[in-house]
């Protein structure tokens, strides 16, 4: 089993060939976006963080920015800083160079002539990288080079019965063929953690599964909050999900049935192949952001209520088991697996179909979120801005 990808100088393999215009903070995000608009194949996003954060909180942001630049889908990176923020542009460049030897450069708005000067300089850098990237030819690689992120958002009762089990079949096929699958959303393991713990590779992984849930519950307690303040959401409940247990028991189907080899922190790159868990929030955009930083080249995303979410770093394949949602949002959703209910096509058959779609998207087929230019980023936070 092979897919066609672009080999990077650090040995990784990308399925897209993007130039990342990376803003260090909010203040440089608009200038970064202007540079990205000038060059075909360049991407950017609004970085709401990067300044006025506590150390531990800032570290999460830094890890995500470094992870984005290191993501195999990125050919090269132009860091765009303002000049006085906590994430110092020249330092970030060095930190990125410590994990990857891909092309990188930076501009600083305060030193390079304001927005227009920085835009001109940054556009030249991005143009040159885009030209080099265009010379690369895709070559076949085996599945051990591919990491699939799994996600659900806007869930309803169909998610746990159809779309998530379909992703589970696809996840098992990925693992069987030597690939890596990330199961995410720690808050949506609550009430189903005993099932995941039974599938842990060893005691250490089992302990980590309970530990990340306890950490989340303690965190909510410390800020005087409750899960019921935000999860399940009003839309989940309108879709028939009554409790977090019901949502979680549906959510974990995405991980399929294989052994859980590792639990990694938010945004961290897994060191194991096969099925791994990433400790992410249930907020889907922030969870996808963490997995893109962790090196996932593409994602499968199930939705019951419907969502337009996409990601600038990786293609996001969306599927639903809710026919009404698919009919209302066909422009956003790639696959309708609702025929599982009528018995017309089985979960197993849809899972194989999704696995084939994953390979097609890895080979270059664009998903609907890419065609619509939907590029959402939400970096996880530990506490409020200071």
């Amino acid at each position, binding site marked *: 089993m092979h897919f066609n990808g672009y080999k990077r100088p650090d040995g990784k393999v990308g399925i897209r060939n993007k130039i990342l215009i990376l803003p260090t903070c909010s203040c440089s995000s608009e200038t970064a976006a202007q540079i990205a608009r000038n060059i075909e194949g360049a991407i950017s996003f609004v970085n709401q963080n990067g300044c006025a954060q506590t150390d531990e909180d800032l570290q999460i942001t830094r890890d995500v920015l470094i992870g984005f630049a290191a993501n195999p889908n990125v050919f090269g990176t132009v860091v765009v800083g303002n000049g006085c923020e906590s994430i110092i542009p020249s330092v970030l460049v060095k930190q990125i160079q410590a994990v990857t030897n891909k092309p990188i450069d930076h501009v600083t708005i305060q030193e390079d002539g304001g927005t227009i000067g920085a835009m001109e300089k940054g556009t030249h850098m991005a143009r040159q990288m885009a030209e080099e990237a265009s010379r690369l030819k895709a070559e076949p690689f085996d599945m051990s080079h591919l990491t699939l992120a799994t996600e659900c958002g806007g869930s309803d009762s169909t998610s746990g019965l159809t779309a998530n089990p379909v992703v589970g079949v696809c996840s098992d096929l990925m693992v069987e063929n030597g690939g890596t699958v990330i199961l995410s959303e720690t808050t949506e393991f609550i009430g189903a953690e005993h099932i995941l713990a039974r599938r842990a590779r060893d005691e250490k992984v089992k302990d980590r599964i309970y530990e990340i849930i306890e950490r989340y519950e303690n965190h909510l307690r410390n800020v005087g909050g409750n899960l019921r303040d935000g999860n399940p959401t009003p839309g989940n409940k309108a879709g*028939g999900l009554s409790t977090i*247990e019901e949502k979680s028991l549906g959510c974990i189907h995405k991980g399929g049935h294989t052994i859980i080899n590792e639990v990694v922190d938010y945004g961290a790159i897994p060191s194991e192949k096969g099925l791994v868990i990433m400790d992410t929030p249930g907020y889907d955009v922030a969870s996808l952001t963490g997995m893109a930083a962790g090196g996932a080249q593409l994602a499968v995303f199930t939705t019951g209520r419907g969502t337009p979410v996409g990601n600038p770093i990786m293609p996001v394949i969306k599927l639903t088991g809710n026919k009404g949602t698919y009919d209302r949002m066909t422009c956003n959703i790639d696959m309708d697996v609702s025929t599982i209910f009528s018995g017309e096509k089985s979960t197993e058959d849809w899972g194989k179909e999704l696995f084939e779609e994953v390979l097609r998207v890895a080979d270059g087929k664009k998903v609907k979120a890419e065609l619509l230019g939907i590029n959402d980023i939400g970096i996880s936070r530990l506490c409020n801005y200071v």
Partner: protein
Amino acid sequence: MKINSLYINPSDNVAMVTIELAAGQKACFRDGDGEASVTLKGDVPIYHKFCIKDIAKGEHVIKYGESLGIALSDISVGDYVHTHNLQSERENID
């Protein structure tokens, strides 16, 4: 009978409708090799749950063969099951 609902695990005490059904209508589902039906006592919106085995107040509501939480009142066969009579054991962490 036209199948319009389903349950997942033999130990489940709730099932889910796959079309919207009103009080008095029959929810029909596959049950082992055969079929079974329940007359609904309340309106059940599409993809929501109803009771297929009596559940006493304080007992677990079971789906996927696992607990969804605790029954807030006695729930009998045909009752609509949602947040009004089912509470999480995990959402309130005080």
